[in-house]
């Protein structure tokens, strides 16, 4: 079960919208597939990210994967804890393992994301 109040990408990122701000991370499914996360590379505050373009990289012991932004916007906060505790992505992907917060540029983009039911259907087929 994934949180029902979030929106999702087909690439396994989630976004939590609170007013003008979107908090972004990766799902428990993604974390499980990656295995033990040992490194997360994130943009600095002030940088812009574009919807469905890469905004960073997450690395497990074995694999390197791109992170894709669910929405466009300016980065207003970065989870600094991940620099020293990247394992939070595995232990609490929807909570302490969040990655960045952006100020949403175009709220209409949220319509292009999956809801929880659609995302669960996607991972069930994977």
């Amino acid at each position: 079960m994934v949180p029902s109040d979030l929106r999702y990408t087909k690439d396994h990122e989630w976004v939590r919208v609170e007013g003008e701000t979107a908090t972004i991370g990766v799902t428990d499914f993604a974390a499980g597939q990656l295995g033990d996360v040992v490194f997360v590379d994130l943009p600095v505050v002030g940088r812009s990210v574009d919807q469905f373009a890469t905004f960073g990289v997450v690395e497990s012991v074995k694999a390197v994967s791109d992170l894709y932004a669910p929405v466009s916007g300016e980065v207003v906060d970065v989870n600094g804890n991940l620099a020293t505790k990247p394992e939070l992505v595995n232990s609490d992907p929807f909570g302490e393992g969040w990655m960045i917060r952006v100020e949403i540029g175009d709220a209409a983009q949220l319509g292009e994301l999956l809801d929880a039911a659609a995302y669960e259907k996607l991972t069930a087929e994977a």
Partner: protein
Amino acid sequence: MTKPLTEPVTEPATAAGPPAATSVAAEGPAEQLHQTALIDVHRALGARLIEFGGWLMPVQYTGILDEHRAVRERAGLFDLSHMGELYVEGEDAGDALAAALVSDPRTLAVGRAQYSMICATDGGVIDDLIVYRLGPERFLVVANAGNATIVSDELASRLGGWRAVLDDRSLATSLVAIQGPRAAEVLGPLTDLDLSALRYYAIAEGQVAGIPALVARTGYTGEDGFELFVDWARGAEIWTALASAGEGAGVIACGLGARDTLRLEAGMPLYGNELDRETNPFDAGLGRVVKLDKPGDFVGRDALARIANEGPDKRLVGLVVTGRGIARHGYPVDAGERRTGVVTSGTQSPTLAKPIAMAYVAPDDGEPGTILAVEVREQPVSAEVVPLPFYKRSTT
């Protein structure tokens, strides 16, 4: 998130990770892959299965970090049945192998083993091997899974003219390893062999849990441990016996992912990463394996003698990444503005808790203490050349 930047196929032992790489487990290409006798055991343990060297193999069970730590602190169980087991027997077996390989198996006492390589005439490495002497005229050559058929064919051809025959028992053998500081205490009560008399790089024939086995004190993890060769059909049985005996000692199942991080910390080469046909033993810092002075000719001698004389044109080094990033297979390595080489293997070291790598660099850039840069996604990240291995177990 699904798109891997490093293709799993470039780092054979390591293809964990992205969903696309793991879906072979369920269906599709699985039919064309060999499966070990332990496949049902792996599935029951919830292993993530991947293609490796033509085999469907477990890459991880509980997680690579857990499994890695288990081997360093306690012990881990590995299914290595994908490896190739080639028996060479006959009056000329020693001479024939000495002519086929770069080492000299004739110098082995019965019951001892040596690291070796089979090279092409140009000195390029066809595979790296362990050669065990089982009797005066009987040897066991263990080849990497992905090269087993090539080595078997090449060795059979090189034995031509000698009174020696090759028996490829790769598909008739299960190979299970127990590796780690507590391996001996777990295996000891199960076997009639006196393990205290079985030295590192020795092999003996005995019984393990009532199963006839060749027990070798060899491994690929940097820890003490044993590799057990048994009949194909007894693979699951011996695994289960070891798993039960090891439960109290904290022994867990370990996959190829942990095997790769363990061997990398131990500075051991992986064929396809540090070794290939374009690489010779001297490049890899393994010139000591090549016995240029042994009696008789051997395949690759002229080329290897020339390389030994002139010096290799690249050098395998250890790197500790001091900047922010993880060096991976294929990433370029620079010395200042100049490209000096390429990373062959790299990961976050679970034991040292920092990124480590092996890389080929120009010989002059390979002195420990040299500061180089690894290009991580087009950004130079600082790395220092360090002596190999990264990790050496304390022998008490």
